[in-house]
């Protein structure tokens, strides 16, 4: 397992310390207008200490990239958030619903697998009830499971909830 990056690597790789706290990121954030995500503060937290790892607002980012596109200092804000999320996940901080989606991927090779109601909809459209994805290729699904296992995905997503 390659593991998650260190917080120091995240700070270095995405120019986090260049942040001058101008607030363009927060002003551009659609989630910030509706929820408690304050991107400007989150960037400062990432740059200062490890507290960002357990900050609940880390998971409120829709990864729309508005903040990163508009950052006057060229900070890789969303990429940094994704990397900090991976540190959090490797330390066991995963939301229950996210763990559920991870289990679906491990079982079906799809985050949203087919169900009977939608097989029916496919047939109404003269499509095969099962799409040509791993849903109709069991060996492909085996390969997907082998890759997930090789990467240690189950161990990462299977730990106790925070």
């Amino acid at each position, binding site marked *: 397992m390659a593991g998650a990056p260190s917080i120091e690597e995240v700070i270095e790789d995405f120019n986090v310390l260049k942040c001058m706290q101008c607030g363009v990121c927060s002003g551009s954030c659609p989630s910030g207008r509706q929820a408690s995500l304050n991107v400007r503060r989150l960037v400062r937290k990432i740059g200062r200490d490890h507290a960002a790892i357990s900050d609940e607002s880390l998971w409120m980012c829709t990864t729309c990239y508005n903040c990163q596109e508009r950052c006057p200092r060229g900070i890789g804000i969303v990429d940094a958030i994704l990397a900090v999320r991976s540190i959090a996940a490797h330390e066991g901080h995963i939301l229950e619903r996210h763990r559920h989606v991870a289990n679906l991927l491990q079982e079906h090779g*799809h985050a949203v697998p087919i169900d009977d109601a939608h097989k029916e909809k496919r047939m109404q459209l003269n499509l095969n009830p099962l799409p040509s*994805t791993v849903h109709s290729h069991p060996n*492909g699904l085996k390969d997907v499971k*082998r*890759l997930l296992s090789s990467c240690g995905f189950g161990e990462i997503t299977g730990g106790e909830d925070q």
Partner: protein
Amino acid sequence: MKISLFLGCLVPNRYPGIEKATNLCLDELGVDWKELEGASCCPAPGVFRSFDESTWLALASRNITLSETDERDVLTICNGCYGSLADANLKLKNNPLLKEQTNSHLSQIGHHFEGTIDVRHIIEFLYSEIGVQKIKEKIVRPLDMKVAVHYGCHMLKPSSNRATASVEHPSVFDELVEALGCTSVDYPDKMECCGAGGGVRSALGDTALAITKHKLGKIEGAGVDCIVEACPFCHMQFDAGQVSLAEKGRKFGIPVIHYSQLLALSLGYSAEDVGINLNEMDCSDFCNLLENKKD
């Protein structure tokens, strides 16, 4: 222009009308295409890339190698799939160490990432490979509708990984919609997110829905016949989101159509042919509107 069609999860498993419409459009436009058999989840960038980049790269690269074997570019019909596959493809092409690590995982299933193909998004593909003019010439039923175009995020961003136009004021999607006889109506916050991305819909549904409600309010104010998007995740968020919002007492009633479906309608197919009646919300008014436009 040889491509393999990557279905992802939401299109085949929740909105198969988009799959059907895409098949019909690619045939009508004479594209040399085939389905990418045996593909899995892209995997979704919001959650899986967040959890573990190695896993994200391994699964994305497996999907890409399936298409490399066929020597076809991958065509995506979802911004999330595009975000994952295009960004992973670029990362692996540009970073020899990541490529080596990923290939060591892939070697267990007898695959090898070469970096020989590109990942395309259907809007970018139609715009640059077919062109607005040729699409105009193919239209048998000009749609003459007022439309709210929703680009979604990952079609255009991060711009450092995209060949397409402006992030703040793009026009490619609007031009493709107007080629079908529609009017792309401008509205406030047009370039804002639908709310679903980044795993927010799956874990923090109320936050996602609040963003969706804001955007739907702006679209409602513009007085359009439908929303047109190019991402089934945005499609689901606007469509199923309107059902959830109606349950909470806020009714919008704006039909949500993927561009492939809109294109298929203008090529003469019916709303039932491309599954618009299979949306979560009631689209019967929209289907009637189409019927009335027949003559």
